[in-house]
């Protein structure tokens, strides 16, 4: 029998662990249309914010139009190799950016699916609206609920342990916008705690009891204060759990200090290996808005495609995925984890004069991990002049909601229609 917040307070100082408190209204809501929660299957969503340049990520190196639209930026086939000389070519048509050697190796091992030409109808070139469209899975990008938040409301409510979290960034992504479920957002573990005056440790229980009494109130839902109060209660409850668990993490993987995505994925690994229920994790890395300096722009390396912002970011992406995958393998979790990368749009196929590219439309996305059926899916958008829209943008071939639906149906065991509001075809990258 779970206790209510009020009963919890009345038990007095330090008598119960906060871990078992589940607010009543959540439980009743959860008895409705709950999805069976299968904690073995885990999903890690990786957002590359800013609009990743798909044409220089999965490079159509044999397409003459690619080279004519990008005289400065395009990679020739001879350039598609890593610093070690390993080729990053994956087919007669495509090669990966040379900074992505680790992902090329994973591709060869059968752990990478690439969905080409992902976008949505009537593309919006605003970062913010386009992100909202991807987050909410709504073609107008309206509302505050996200696709993962809707899934969490259906599947994760009532679970006593931490099941979902956004990791490593200060903002909670809108994908996690939920009606009832409070998704934890953890910037770093050391700060994730409720701290009181260390001069008077004997007063700590009085403080937490008073805090919990206040945060345990049921304040009007739909208002800022109601949402704040729920978050306050859940943050302290969850923080105490997380503090207990994550100290058990041990790994031989050395994550580099200068790679922000690796830092986030290490925290994900830390949670996944110590909290068995942790199954829905989200990390993000910004910097992909490459209007300029996409390739080398400084005097010494002007025009050098092997350096510049985009190469650095893709290197971080590739390296972080590999280390995270190795960490999961070491802990016997690699068969249980699916990774999905997305970005709000691609860049336009033609380059600008700043060694960069402007906002575009469709782009490839990666789905990674042992569970995927490796290979290329979707279709590369045509670069033919007649196929581009008046702004010079390509047409999409796969609606991003088809990717979501495939993951929801084939991996998370959810009814994708209940989350997305409509039925979408299966893209095929999961068995």
């Amino acid at each position: 029998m779970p206790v209510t917040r009020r009963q919890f307070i009345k038990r007095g100082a330090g008598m119960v662990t906060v871990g078992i408190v589940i607010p009543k209204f959540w439980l009743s809501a959860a008895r409705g249309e709950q999805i069976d929660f299968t904690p073995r299957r885990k999903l890690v969503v990786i957002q590359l914010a800013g609009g990743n340049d798909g044409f220089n990520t999965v490079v159509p190196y044999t397409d003459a139009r690619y080279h004519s639209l990008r005289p400065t930026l395009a990679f020739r086939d001879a350039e598609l190799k890593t610093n070690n000389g390993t080729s990053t070519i994956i087919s007669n048509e495509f090669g990966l950016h040379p900074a992505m050697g680790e992902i090329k190796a994973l591709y060869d091992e059968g752990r990478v699916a690439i969905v080409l030409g992902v976008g949505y109808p009537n593309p919006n070139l605003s970062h913010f609206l386009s992100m909202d469209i991807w987050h909410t899975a709504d073609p107008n990008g309206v509302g505050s609920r996200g696709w993962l938040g809707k899934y969490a409301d259906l599947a994760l409510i009532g679970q006593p342990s931490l099941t979902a979290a956004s990791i490593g960034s200060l903002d909670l992504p809108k994908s996690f916008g939920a009606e009832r479920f409070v998704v934890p957002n953890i910037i770093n573990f050391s700060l994730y705690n409720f701290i009181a005056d260390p001069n008077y440790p004997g007063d700590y229980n009085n403080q937490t009891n008073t805090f919990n009494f206040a945060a345990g109130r049921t304040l009007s839902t739909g208002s800022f204060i109601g949402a704040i109060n729920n978050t306050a209660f859940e943050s302290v409850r969850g923080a105490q759990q997380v503090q207990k668990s994550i100290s058990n993490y041990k790994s031989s993987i050395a994550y580099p200090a200068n790679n922000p995505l690796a830092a986030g994925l290490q925290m994900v690994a830390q949670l996944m290996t110590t909290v068995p229920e942790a199954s829905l994790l989200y990390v993000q890395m910004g910097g992909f808005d490459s209007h300029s300096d996409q390739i080398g722009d400084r005097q010494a390396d002007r025009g050098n495609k092997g350096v510049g912002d985009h190469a650095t970011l893709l290197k971080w992406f590739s390296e972080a995925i590999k280390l995270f995958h190795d960490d999961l393998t070491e802990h016997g979790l690699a068969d249980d984890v699916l990774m999905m990368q997305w970005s709000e749009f691609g860049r336009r196929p033609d380059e600008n004069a700043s060694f960069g590219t402007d906002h575009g439309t469709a782009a490839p996305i990666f789905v990674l991990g042992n569970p995927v059926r490796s290979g290329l899916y979707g279709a590369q958008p045509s670069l033919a002049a007649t196929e581009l829209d008046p702004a010079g943008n390509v047409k999409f071939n796969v609606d991003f909601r088809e990717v979501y639906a495939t993951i929801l149906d084939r991996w998370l065991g959810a009814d994708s229609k209940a989350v997305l509001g409509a039925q979408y075809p299966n893209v095929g990258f999961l068995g």
Partner: protein
Amino acid sequence: MAGITYDAAAHLLRRMGFGGSPAEIDDITSRGREGAVDLLINYEQIDNRAMEDMLRSSFDFSDPFDFPRFNRGELQRWWFTRMTYTRRPFEEKMTLFWHNHFATSASKTGDLFVYNQNLTLRSHALDQFESLLLRVAQDPAMLLWLDGITNVRGKPNENFARELQELFTMGITDAVTGEPNYTEQDVKEIARAFTGWKFFHPRNDPNPFSYQFIVNPPEHDNTTKTIYGGTQWARTGNLDGADVIGVICARRATARYVVKKLFDFFVYPLGEAIDRATIEKFADVYMNRNHSIKELVSAIFTSDEFFSQRARFALVKSPVEIIVGPIRMLGARYNPGASAREAASNNILPAVSIFLGQELFNPPDVSGWKLNLGWINTSTLLNRFTYADLLAINRTRDLNAPGLWLSQEQLRSLAKKNSKKTVKKLLSILGPLDVGSEIVAALRNYLESDDGGNSAGFAPDDLTIDKKVRGLIHLIMCLSEFQLN
């Protein structure tokens, strides 16, 4: 002159500044709506020498290339010091508003240029809108931030042209009618109008902060552009950036968008249909008063909408408000320390601010910080509680040591002789917060509890004040009500 209530005055000071001490609120109370708003808006008349003296003794910004004395952390410390000690709080609040509006990050543009931009935003915060916008657009920070300096004839870079319309002036769609305000073609044409915009440091100018704007003729597209074709705003000609800004700022869509931004930041989040009349009413002020920001904000802050119940505690405090507010309300001590990195405690406010989700001079992207619930997630909320603890328990024997302090003497003046009065006093100072009798009882219960959780009564002796009144301040700042503004 008819006064306003204490609560209304506190509301005004929270929104037009960072909250006031009881003495400041009392002063405002006697002035009435117009009088109070006049006083706060016409801030150039207020003597701010004490703060200026403090800045002079704490910072050395004589050389922008002297990294130990001039860097992003120092800029943040400098701004927090201003916000904490200024007698012109609205000047800082408007600067913060514009910083959020023209969200420019030092991570791309460098510290020197965001500092310059900050000075521009402060000194022109209440100008005519296009005058401010043009200055910002021609400031080095914006030219770097949205790639203006690489926007050249023949190969335009669209970054500034897009955000100018989407974020700085009109929005993608009209705030009232919902009609699209511009097309992709307009983005392209407007990018051409801004080609060739550059800046330089005049060779003989001894001031290392002084930069000048110039249009570089060979890089400027000197041909005909057509903007907003097929609409009543259509213009065709050899337009340059200033022409475009003039056209955009004269559009009612801009008036509506600016009103909405101001309301969302200072009053309450505007809904869709129900607030059309409000938007139109203040859009009229913008249109009829020559696009004057000063006239517009004056109309907003003296309005019934601003003083309505709907507006009270209708916003979530931003990190800067959470940090600076209680220092001013409680009369706590913040010593910025001296120039350079003497001690970590010098930089306490900037450090806290980062963990609460608002690093000044480094907004997350060009749309600025997401307000209200955008500030709230489990991490940032736990960090707010940690800051509350920090402020409540930082003790010192040397009140002049750098850092943030709440002295025992100050606490003595806030503590009353019984638990009920002490709780009421602190709820009043930190708000005033209306939290209901249950919470008042719980806080009294806290003040009276011994370490075993049993009631032991309350007597405001030094030990009780040090332990329990500090604890009470921590707990009040952890209340959900305190997170609201």
